[in-house]
Structure formats: C-alpha cells, structure tokens
C-alpha cells in the first residue's frame, strides 16, 4: 500500500532556558530526537509511549503547531513545511482530535458554530446548515445538539463533536491524540467503535496516539513504541503482541493488567519493570533505556543502537539485535 505520511529523521528540540554564568549554554529538551517511519494509506498506525516520550510532540508537529528542528514530514510527496504558512489544501487533509474534549471545544460557541468554522473555510460553496446536520448525524448525535453549548454536553458527546469537527474538512488523515483517555470506561468503547466505523466509511488513515497498549491490540494495524523521543520498536500489530523484541516493549506488555489466566499466558515472560522515564532534558548516554533495561550490556551505556529490521516489517533499535 502507498505511504500517506512519511517521517524522515524528524527532530524537535525545545530551548527551555539557559545555564552557566559566563558562557550561557542553552538548555534543550529533545522531545522528538530523530524518528523515521511511514504511515500507509488506510491503516491505523498506533504510536505508543509513556507520558514524556514525545508522542504528542509528533502529533503537534504534524498538524503544524511546531516546525521541526530538523528532518521532514511528507504528505503524499508534499513537504508539510515547504511553505512558511501551511496552505489550506494541506490543512484540509490533516486533522486532529485532541485528548481533552473539555478544552478542545470553545465554551462560548455552540456546536453549530464550532462545526461551521471548518465548513466555511474548506467547503465554502456548500450549505453550512445542511452539512452541520450531516456531520452530527455522522457521529450519531441528534440535531438537538446544534444549539447546545459544550458545557451542557457529557465528555463522550464533546468528543463526538470534536470528531465531527475533525471530519468537517473531509480529511484523509486524522491524528487521534489519546481520544479516549479522558473518558469514562463505559463511553470509551462507544467512541472507539465510532472512530473505527468512520474509518471504514470515509477511508481514513489514522495516527492513533496512546499510552494504552491493550487498546492498540484491538484497533491498530501497525504499532510503534516511543521512548524519550526515539522509536524503539515498530511492527505489525499481530507480530508486535506475539513476539516483542525490545526489552522495553516486553516490559510494557508485561505490565498490562489482566483479569484471567488465559490472558496472562498471552503475555511475554515476566519482566521486572523498574524505574521511571528519565527527564528528556537529561537523556542518558548510549541507549536511553539502558538505566531501566533488565538485559543491559556494557556497550549500552556508550553507544546508541541503530534501527535494525529483524524480520520483514519488524524493526528494533537495541544492541541485542546488532546490524548484520
């Protein structure tokens, strides 16, 4: 299948201050530090990581909130950052659903007004009211919601409106930045089903960002794990859950809470998880994971490993898998 979005050695560093008295050295946070991967047309690509791993920075750079420090993001062979201001035609194609539906809807604007903005900007020749009604119908909300203000909606309803707004421009690529993590468990399933149905109906490609691995097992076609701004492992979802190679992936999979013995048997052998994710200001030398790694070797604290394709479509960045 064709690639729709290609990340090529993307880096995003933030200067957050300066240190030193006479020679001022900038303090930088390497939020995203050289990631390369491609999302294919029509798939759901899961980007998983702990908080602070840089997964949201990837999302915000893709939508154009930030410009990359170095590296490129291409959308169907168009460089997203070729122009200083992103053209409307590209904005139309790439949309986002944010994590917190409370903050993503303007409390002073009605649902109809919220949906009208992208409609007016990207589909100016169409009847706004008619389209608004269709969008609401699309996300399974009744027309009564048109003139409601966000504070009168439940968390799930707010997220449905946010999804409708993202789809208002008729995009082909939608970033889902933890779309369910702020919601009640009872409503999460409903939102996920809605998201997956819309993907089938409109042939959407998703970049699904989450810290919830068990959710990825159900929705993603491919999964990548991020740790401190870098990708550790990337594989087809089935492969990923069956034979995880990276010690960090194994640790994450082992830490998923399960209810039954059968589920326990599916998990990789018990790995002890230890430590917290270090601050991205002070990234450890060598492999950034070596301080927490149960299988670390002498080389790990000195040399940063490179990405190696162990099997077709399954790549790992770990010294246990040296390049041949």
């Amino acid at each position, binding site marked *: 299948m064709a690639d729709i979005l290609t990340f090529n050695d993307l880096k995003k560093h933030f200067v957050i201050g300066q240190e030193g008295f006479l020679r001022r050295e900038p303090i930088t946070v390497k939020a995203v530090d050289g990631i390369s991967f491609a999302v294919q047309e029509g798939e759901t690509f899961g980007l998983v990581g702990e908080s602070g791993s840089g997964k949201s920075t990837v999302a915000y750079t893709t*939508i*154009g*909130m930030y410009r990359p420090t170095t590296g490129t993001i291409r959308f169907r062979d168009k460089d997203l950052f070729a122009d200083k201001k*992103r053209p*409307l035609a590209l*904005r139309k194609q*790439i*949309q*986002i659903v*944010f994590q*917190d539906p409370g*903050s*993503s*809807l*303007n*409390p*002073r*604007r*009605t649902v109809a007004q*919220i949906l009208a*903005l*992208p409609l007016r*900007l*990207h589909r100016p020749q169409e009847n706004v*009211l*008619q389209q608004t*009604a*269709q969008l609401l*119908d*699309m996300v*399974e909300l*009744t*027309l*009564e919601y*048109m*003139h*409601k203000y966000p504070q009168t909606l439940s968390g799930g309803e707010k997220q449905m409106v*946010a999804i409708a*707004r993202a789809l208002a*421009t008729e995009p082909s690529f939608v970033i889902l930045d933890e779309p369910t993590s702020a919601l009640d468990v009872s409503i999460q399933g409903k939102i996920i089903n809605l998201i997956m149905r819309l993907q089938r109906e409109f042939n959407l490609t998703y970049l699904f960002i989450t810290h919830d691995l068990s959710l990825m097992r159900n929705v993603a076609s491919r999964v990548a794990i991020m740790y401190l701004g870098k990708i550790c492992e990337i594989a087809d979802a089935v492969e990923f859950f069956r034979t995880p190679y990276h010690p960090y992936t194994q640790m994450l999979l082992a830490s998923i809470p399960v209810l039954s013995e059968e589920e326990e048997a599916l998990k990789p052998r018990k790995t002890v998880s230890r430590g917290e994710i270090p601050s991205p200001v002070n990234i450890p030398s060598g492999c950034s994971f070596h301080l927490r790694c149960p299988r670390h070797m002498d080389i790990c604290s000195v040399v940063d490993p490179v990405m190696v394709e162990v099997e077709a479509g399954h790549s790992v960045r770990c010294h246990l898998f040296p390049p041949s």
Partner: protein
Amino acid sequence: MGEVIPARHSHPTISLEQVKLMERQTRRENLGRAWYKFSRNSLSLVGAAMVLLVLLLAIFAPLVAPYPEHVKPFTDFANAKLPPSWAHPFGTDEIGRDILSRSIFGFRYALWMGVVVLSLVVPPGVLLGLVAGYFQGTRIDTIIMRITDIFLAVPPLILALAIASILKPNLSNAMMAVSLMWWPWYTRLVYGLASTLRNEYFVVSAEVSGASTAHILFREILPNVISPIFTKISLDMGWVIIIGSTLSFVGLGVQPPEPGLGTMVASGAKYLPDQWWIAVFPALAIVLIVLGFNLLGDGLRDMLGAEEI
C-alpha cells in the same frame, strides 16, 4: 414546510424550523439562568435599581427637576442658603439655586464622563490585550506590555492633573486625561486571560483549520473574556466618576456655573458645617451613582462567573 434533513441513523427526521425553535428555547433558558444568578444577590438588584434611577433622572432631567432654569446662569440672593424645605428638598446654594435640580443635572455630567471615558478606553485596551496575549512571547507582546507597564507606573490622578492643567481646564480635557491613563488596566486584564486561552486546544484547533488571526482573536478568544470586561466596565464607571468628580472638585473638570457634582461639592465646602446641605447633597448624589455601579458590577460578576476581577 422547511427543508427536511434526512437522517441516516436511528434519529427521527427533523425540520430546520424545529432546529430554529430549539435555538430560541436554548437562548431563553440561558437568559433565565443568568437572571436567576443575578437576582440571587439582593444587593445587585439594589445596585441595578440605583443605576436605573440615576439613568432615568439624567435622561429626563429637564422634566423631573423642579427648577431647571437654575442650571443656567442664575442668581436669587433673596433665597440664598435656604435649608432643606418642601420647596427646596435639598436646600439652596450660596446664590439661591435649587440644589436638587442642579444635582439631577449633575448626573448628566457624571454619566457622560463615565460613558465617554470608557468608550474611549475599552476598545483599544481590549484589542491591545488580545493581540499581546495571542502573540505571547513574541516581540509584539514585549512592545505592547512594556508600554502598558510604563503607563501603569504613572500615578493616575497626578497624570490627569498634569494634563488637565497644561491644557485648558474643562470637562473634555479631563476626560481625555483620564482616558489616557485608564486603558492599560483593560490591556492587562485581557492579556492575562488571552495568554492562557491562546494555548487552549480550541484555539489550536482553529489554527489547524486555517482560521484567520481576526477570527481567532474576536470569535474564539474575545467571547471568553467578555464577562470579566463587562464586570470591570461596571465597576470602573464608579471609579471614573469619582476621578472626574475629584478633578471637578479641584477646578479641572466641569466649570461653574455648569452643575458638576464635584464642582458643587467644592463650592459648598466653604459653607461647612453651618450650611451643610450645599456640599452634602451633591456628595450624596456621587455616593448614589458610584455605589449603584459598584453593586451592579458585583451582581454582573456573580452572573457571568467572572472571578478574575
């Protein structure tokens, strides 16, 4: 017979007329809720009543005032310094003018001062605050906010005194002087709110869609800062009127024989305490109008939920 929108899912079909009906209903409910919050505090109702009274008196002054001719140049030494009576409920001043009539006309100057100053001050102050807040951290922010800081550092009354005394002392120069020192408060208020709001996801989302800066400033951010602005306007009406009366009191505002409330207090001060009514009733008129606007402002704050002020 409106256009009918077909529903693909299980919802019943609904006409656009019904949608409009629902919109009206929502609006009515919101108004009802706002009134409930406002009227819960009886003091804000008292404030609203006081403001309404002052407004009506000012508008219909020539009809309400018992001696409207006493506002123009007029002397009647035979009836000078009369204490309050049925004929002159507030008494008469040192040249025989009816103080009640002059106080009623005095409301006009006080309200005029407040309205003119605030309409000069609020739009530019709010606009600068919105722009600086939205471009937070850039050079635009630095320039606007440092200029604001400079203006805030000048003692307001002294600046107004200086300007009013350099130029001709009259009401319009007093209003100009007060306006010049008042806008930074609005810039500061709006800047604080806008710089937080600009990072909210709804603003980011509008940016992602490609909305213009004007749309983001006036349609996304402004509606979220409008409540604190209205509350501040109501509270500031009182303050501006006090400052205006103070300038009139020291002779830099409304010029005699025009009936400025501050001017009347100043001329009556000489006759304290024996002919107390000459100064005290105009002073009470100032209290009425300022207290009214302050109570109303508190009520608006409760109603609009603007805790920032």
